[in-house]
């Protein structure tokens, strides 16, 4: 007897396009003897299936349980169908059109099957640099618009050859509907050319030639997945120094790429968890503990305890690195102050003086995507959220109602912006600093691109309360253009909200937020940066702060750590007393010349010396006291990073700290510095080792935080602690605080998937905007 057939219409939303979902459905349906169809829709995937009821049930269950690794199902709904199947087998139908609510997925590191193919002499993709399949390859970097079909990507100009087409249409093939599918016959072409003159180079195996040039110490600009990269041998000091000069990047560590884990292990310690991170589909730069005395060029990461390593992520990188027995420097290809270049013509215009050769190809990079940077502590820490990560939807806290689309603008440094839709938030890729002319001019284009790609038209725009931020000004302009309401969010509140939302903290819940960062505008018009907030998403109250200290010369104080020491000692009333040490203490020498005299006068007159309760500047002041780092830093956080490195060796042996003095006020407690500086300078005069003083400083900050939190818990019974702000990239501080807080019974929440610094701020801004009730 013919079994009874019933039908189901199943709609699935989430990350289900471009991840091999339809072939998966096709295979699953066939294994359960179902007939019907599967189809990409703007909302996700639609399935109509008919078969035996028990088989249909099993099929539905297995859909979510066995979905491909890159897929992420947000919702799966099924309804019975009361008519018979129009089809006699199970088919994959062309995409339907309509309002877009699906997601563009991230670029994925080359899968093992593809890696095997490009190194297999007998495979038709042997050494083909644009190899990929449904499990891997480019996505966000080539997508012009959704839905994700080849015609909507920069693969559109490349028509597949017969062999590729056969793979593309064969449901059993790994390349079934792999949109960027191609081979050397029909796909993008790679070529090598000298930077200055137009000489013909042999083009039969350009990757081997490029490898040879790199080995010889040449500088190359390579068109990579998400943008141009500058590269050279990491063992060749001359080449690295040249690269630093032309990038105007004197000190900031450079990222490295090694061909495999074994080579990484020649230069750095790699834990199992770090190995997993390095080999993940995200293909990030992972910060690793550096080994001493390697052959690495000195200027790769001067004075740093860590190295940033990544493994090859594309077929091109796999082939290039396989031909080399040295690691490569891999840094974004741009002239300083400009965004990473993605275009051949601009690269040849702007980088011609910097490099010797260009390794170019003819597939457009649609969207600029920097490399992501992570650490494993063992908790994950995201330092830059970009390629491989930024396409992931961030779930909203379950209690927040996202009925209204919000665009949050972020801050000016390490900018990311955030779009909120009903199904989650999208935090943009790392945009760079809006202090840079090139980034500012393109910022609106970037936002327009995201809005168009995700079909988002915001009703609200959340901006930082700092009215002079470029991001705030552009947010206000956009609000006028799009007819949106503007909502200004306090900087440090947004930091707290971002971490709260990452951990799905409930809307009604209060937390004790510890926000340590450089600077942000406070509600009182002063600059904040060392704040203790009692907060929920909607509101906050500051219950304690670090003692405000002037910034002599304003923004200049962010570049020159010694200015902060000068100001700290002045506020602590110790300048006069310590002047006498000019001949015995190196740090005081600097603080007694005529420039310091003038600056102190400027501070007294209130001339460009705004007050700031900044924790970042405290780190600068201590670094200056210990003469750690240069007089003028060349990248943000440099002095603090060097101070952390100095403390590293003693941190787990030193548990005492300098005096903690919290002045209790009626509305606001304040951490005061006089006793701290007196004790620190006493150590300096006694000749106590820098490493110990640096460790004691870290312990002091931990003790301060503990005391402030315990005091507040006794008043409010709030037990959840959120650690937020860029200073928490400091792993000693973070680990030490975690340990202490745990022992004292606090629940701890810190940023993991999002950066703790301003790169995660937009997410928090959006959450605060969502929490405001009423008509949006």
């Amino acid at each position: 007897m013919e079994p009874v057939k019933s039908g189901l219409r199943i709609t699935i939303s989430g990350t289900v396009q471009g991840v091999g979902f339809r072939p998966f459905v096709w295979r699953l349906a066939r294994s359960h003897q179902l007939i019907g169809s599967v189809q990409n829709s703007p909302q996700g995937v639609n399935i109509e299936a008919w078969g035996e009821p028990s088989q249909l049930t099993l099929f539905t269950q297995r859909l979510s349980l066995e979905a491909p690794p890159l897929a992420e199902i947000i919702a799966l709904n099924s309804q019975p169908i009361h008519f018979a199947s129009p089809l006699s087998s199970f088919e994959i139908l062309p995409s339907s059109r309509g309002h877009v609510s699906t997601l563009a997925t991230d670029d994925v590191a080359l899968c093992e099957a593809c890696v095997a193919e490009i190194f297999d002499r007998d495979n038709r993709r042997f050494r083909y640099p644009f190899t990929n399949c449904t499990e891997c390859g480019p996505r966000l970097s080539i997508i012009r618009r959704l839905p994700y079909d080849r015609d909507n990507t920069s693969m559109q100009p490349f028509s597949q050859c017969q062999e590729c087409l056969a793979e593309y249409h064969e449901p059993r093939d790994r390349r079934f509907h792999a949109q960027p599918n191609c081979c050397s016959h029909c796909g993008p072409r790679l070529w090598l050319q000298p930077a200055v003159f137009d000489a013909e180079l042999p083009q039969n195996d350009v990757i081997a030639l490029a490898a040879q040039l790199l080995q010889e110490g040449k500088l190359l600009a390579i068109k990579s997945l998400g943008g141009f990269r500058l590269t050279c041998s990491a063992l060749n000091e001359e080449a690295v120094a040249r690269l630093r000069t032309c990038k105007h990047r004197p000190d900031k560590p450079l990222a490295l790429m090694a061909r495999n884990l074994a080579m990484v292990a020649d230069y750095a310690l790699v834990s199992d968890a770090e190995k997993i991170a390095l080999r993940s589909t995200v293909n990030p730069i992972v910060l690793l503990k550096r080994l001493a005395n390697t052959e690495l060029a000195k200027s790769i990461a001067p004075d740093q305890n860590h190295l940033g390593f990544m493994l090859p992520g594309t077929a091109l990188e796999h082939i290039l690195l396989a031909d080399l027995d040295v690691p490569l420097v891999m840094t974004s290809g741009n002239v300083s102050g400009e965004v990473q270049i993605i275009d051949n013509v601009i690269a040849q215009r702007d980088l011609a003086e910097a490099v010797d050769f260009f390794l170019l190809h003819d597939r457009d990079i649609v969207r600029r995507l920097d490399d992501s940077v992570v650490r494993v502590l063992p908790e994950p820490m995201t330092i830059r959220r970009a390629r491989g990560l930024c396409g992931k939807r961030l779930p909203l806290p379950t209690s927040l109602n996202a009925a209204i689309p919000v665009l949050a603008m972020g801050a000016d440094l390490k900018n990311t912006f955030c779009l909120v839709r009903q199904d989650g938030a999208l935090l943009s890729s790392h945009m760079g600093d809006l202090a840079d002319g090139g980034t500012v001019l393109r910022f609106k284009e970037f936002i327009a691109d995201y809005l168009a790609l995700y079909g988002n038209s915001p009703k609200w725009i959340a901006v930082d309360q700092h009215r002079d931020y470029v991001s705030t000004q552009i947010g206000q302009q956009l609000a006028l253009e799009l007819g949106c309401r503007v909502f200004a969010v306090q900087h440090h509140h947004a930091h707290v909200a971002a971490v709260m939302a990452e951990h799905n903290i409930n809307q009604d819940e209060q937390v004790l937020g510890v926000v340590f960062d450089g600077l942000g505008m406070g509600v009182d018009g002063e600059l904040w940066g060392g704040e203790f907030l009692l907060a929920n998403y909607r509101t906050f109250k500051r219950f304690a702060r670090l003692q405000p200290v002037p910034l002599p010369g304003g923004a200049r104080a962010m570049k020159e750590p010694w200015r902060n020491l000068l100001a700290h000692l002045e506020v602590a009333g110790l300048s006069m007393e310590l002047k006498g040490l000019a001949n015995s203490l190196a740090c005081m020498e600097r603080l007694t010349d005529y420039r310091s005299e003038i600056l102190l006068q400027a501070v007294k007159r209130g001339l460009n010396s705004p007050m700031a309760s900044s924790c970042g500047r405290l780190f600068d002041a201590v670094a200056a006291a210990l003469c750690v780092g240069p007089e003028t830093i060349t990248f943000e956080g440099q002095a603090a990073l060097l101070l952390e490195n100095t403390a590293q060796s003693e941190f787990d042996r030193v548990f005492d700290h300098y005096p903690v003095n919290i002045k209790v006020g009626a509305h606001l407690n304040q951490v005061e510095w006089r006793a701290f500086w007196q004790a620190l300078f006493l150590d300096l005069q006694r000749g106590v080792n820098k490493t110990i003083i640096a460790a004691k400083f870290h312990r002091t900050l931990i003790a301060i935080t503990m005391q402030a939190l315990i005091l507040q818990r006794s008043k409010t019974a709030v037990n959840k602690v959120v650690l937020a702000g860029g200073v928490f990239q400091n792993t000693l501080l973070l680990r030490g605080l975690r340990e202490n807080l745990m022992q004292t019974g606090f629940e701890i929440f810190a940023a993991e998937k999002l950066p703790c610094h301003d790169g995660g701020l937009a997410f928090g801004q959006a959450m605060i905007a969502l929490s405001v009730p009423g008509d949006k």
Partner: protein
Amino acid sequence: MSQMFCYPDTPLDFVDGVVEMNHGSGGRAMAQLIDSVFLVAFQETSKWSKNDFAELHLPPGRCVMSTDSYVISPLFFPGGDIGSLAVHGTINDLAMSGARPLYLSVGFILEEGLPLADLKKIALSMAKAAADAGVAIVTGDTKVVERGKGDGVFINTTGLGVIEGQIDAAGNRARPGDSIIVSGTVGDHGIAIMTQREGLKFESSLCSDSAALHGLVALMVETFGPYIHCLRDPTRGGVAAVLNEVAQQSEVGMVLTEAAIPIKKMVAGACELLGLDPLFIANEGKLLCFCESEVAESLLAVMRSHPLGRDAANIGTVVLKDPGMVLVETAMGGSRLLDWPLGEPLPRIC
């Protein structure tokens, strides 16, 4: 003439005397003040009349008028004082149209307690500045406010001039491709005032650049008038304010080369130490010129032949893209956006 009214019994005391409330009352004390200070100062060089108006004869040409009020602390500074500043400032405003300045009016608001010696010094300084510039101060007004309600003295000057040459300069006339020329070092005035006011003891001293620019402008107009699209004096808000204004009014972008901007070592050093951007600092004897690039080099040569244009330099270009935006290409090879100045000459802090 000085004997025609009955003054108070004693002459004004220019050693210890101060401005009193009755000096603004309209009575004898006021008449005495006007006669012994302003009339003495201005009658030699100007056609000062004691009427409440002045009758003027204008040569043919387009007539230009401009007014500005001067508020500055300290009143006396290296390179000038509020008096010379009030003359130069309004002359320069007229000159930026390409006009030849002819007449000034002056209004004083004096604070009770201002030393009469200072007032006399200021009046004489104004007279000298006007005489040097060939401009007549033709009418004026005096008011006195109570102690604490003024900063010593405020001065308003209004000027009249006539455009005789071939020039049509305006803020909306900058065109893509134009060269941007500055007539000399930037930031001198603002830094000179600031160091004096705040008591900052730098190793070397600095003078304000306060000067009347119409002579330089006349030379420029005579040689290349039709090629000049816009002239502006970068006073309050500095070069940054002018460039942003012109970029917005003309709907063009601008790209500056930081290394080409002339700046005195002392000013650069002070700015770096105090964290100030010299492009935001006020000038009182400099102009910015937007001209067709073909004539830029020749115009520069002409400007450099004039004492007030010795350090003139081509500092950038007007561009089509990114209208309203002013970019500075930094010495480091990067670029930054030159935004509108904030309220004070302070940099933004992120």
